[in-house]
């Protein structure tokens, strides 16, 4: 269980830094298809921002509600990943062959762009959730509530 930090400096800096970090994380995810970045890195940055929120404001504070909500999204990211890949199968292509995504009104480059973006969001979500659940598991002292190791290990696949 992590309790709130009592230093004013830390709390104030946190209020400034956390939104910036989250914005940067989203930017890295979206930018991933054009340059360095992508789902994994973006997910790590997002996770770091939420872990920071937990460390500064405590696990139960209103300010870290996003991290608590994210914990329930265990596995959702991988389902998005597999789902996008599966939609390509329905379109007749191989797994993750985005050219076969059946989206009306989009040409092939746009489909590929959309497909990779959706996949990256899935990866980012999963990496972020895994990061948060690791840090919360490590901080829980005797309560063995967190048994979400089932998804933690596949996030690098």
């Amino acid at each position, binding site marked *: 269980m992590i309790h709130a930090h009592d230093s004013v400096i830390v709390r104030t800096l946190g209020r400034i830094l956390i939104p910036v970090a989250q914005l940067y994380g989203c930017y890295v995810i979206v930018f991933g298809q054009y340059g360095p970045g992508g789902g994994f890195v973006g997910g790590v940055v997002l996770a770091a921002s939420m872990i920071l929120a937990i460390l500064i404001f405590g696990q139960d504070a209103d300010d870290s509600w996003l991290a608590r909500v994210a914990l329930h999204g*265990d*596995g*959702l990211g*991988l*389902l998005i990943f*597999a789902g996008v*890949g*599966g939609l390509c*199968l329905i379109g007749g*292509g*191989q*797994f*993750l*062959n*985005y*050219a*076969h995504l059946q989206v009306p009104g989009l040409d092939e480059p746009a489909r590929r762009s959309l497909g990779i973006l959706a996949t990256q969001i899935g990866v980012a979500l999963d990496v972020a959730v895994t990061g948060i659940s690791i840090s919360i598991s490590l901080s829980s002292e005797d309560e063995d509530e967190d*048994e*979400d*190791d*089932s*998804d933690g*290990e*596949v996030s*690098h*696949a």
Partner: protein
Amino acid sequence: MTNQLPILLFLTPFVAGVAMPLLTAKRPGWCRPVTLGTVALLLFLALLNLVHVLTYGPMEYALGGWAAPLGIAWLNDSLAAMLILTVAFVAQVTLLYGYQVTSPGLERSMAYYALVLMLLTGLIGIVFAADLFNLFVFLEVAALAAYALAGAAGGKSAVFAFRYLLLGSLGAALYLLGVGHLYVATGTLNMADLAIRIPGLLSSTAVASGLIYIFLGLSIKMALLPLHGWLPDAYRNAPNAVTPLLAATITKISLAAWVRIEHSLILPGIEVGAVPVLVLLEELGVIAALAGGALALVQTDIKRMFAYAGIGHVGLILVGVSLGNATGFAGGMAYLINDAVMQVALFMIAGALLHLHGVRTLDELRAMQTPSPWLTGSLLVVAIGMVGLPPTGGFFGKWNIVLGALEAEHYLAAFSVLASTLLTLGFFIKVFACWFHAAAADAPAPPEMTAPLSTALGLTAIAIVGLGVFSDPIFHLLVGFASGGGG
């Protein structure tokens, strides 16, 4: 749609495993039916895939539509199809068996079922992977699930699972180091592509050391004898419902991964100094087969005894596939499939003994009540298979390894197969001596055996005999694979 079979086989356990926490968070009772249904679907798809491969020949699956040397390819050939069918069968049987024998607390635990499905996902990936790095990723997916499963009982099992984790990670690191060496030297990770480039580069130290690192890494994963330290204790202390699955899959599929690399990269003529590499591998197999059998003979703990028997058989299979001829290769691979089924049966019996009778060691076995005829019958069938008597698949595997050894004029290899057979017979005699002695009247009566447990035992016994009955087509398929047809 049939050309999507490899990915469908992979996605079935993957999606179910990932969705498990979401599906069953409010309804823990759903875990078991969902998992059983998923594995049943997997079994059906695996059968379909085998039929498809036999009809249309091997095929390559390019993920994302990127063709092989550039993208990641999966190879779906007869060997892969058979291995996947074996894995699916073994998983289905273990889950059936788990109905009665699960440790308290594990029964309703969502994590257990999700981990089993993740293990299957990793194993299917290993079998299909035709790319060294892709293989590494799936090795790790399977291994991480296996570590968690081995430690699922908590307490002492967690200690041994942690040791397994450390050694397994060392193996993975060595493997990755080897892959790095090969990538630097050749610029490719695709196995078919490597097979073209490696023969010209064998004088390079980087390539040689890369192959050695890959072999060492996979040796830890397959528990080849000097590197088997993690296995006996991890298997002994893992939950009853977990050990059969781990014993039947992890070491065997890691060995199959090595066989794929060896088959495509190490040609019979390659030598180190004046010694052919294949002969070196074969000698390592001989040592593992003999020492594993001997170590099994001196154990008093039943699960540890069976674990050492499995270690010995890994050596035996390595002997077969390293003989450098198609007969030995087919014998080795046929024995690998048989051994997976036999290991599942052995550890199911050991687990049932522990769960129903509270028996862990041979002395306790001597002092227990007469066991159920299902257990006795199934142990008899497994013993016949492990020793290698004709109606079972074990016989045909060993027979062809011996034939291959004689064909290659490697008499030491032929001797090791026969000697390991004798050692296997030896420890089964020890077990049976205690087993049929068991008639203590004062021991408490064991709880009833439920239908899923006896079904699981019956199914494996049928499979052991069935693999013997159908050994001829299996053997011809594998000979065809070994002589380069691929399926």
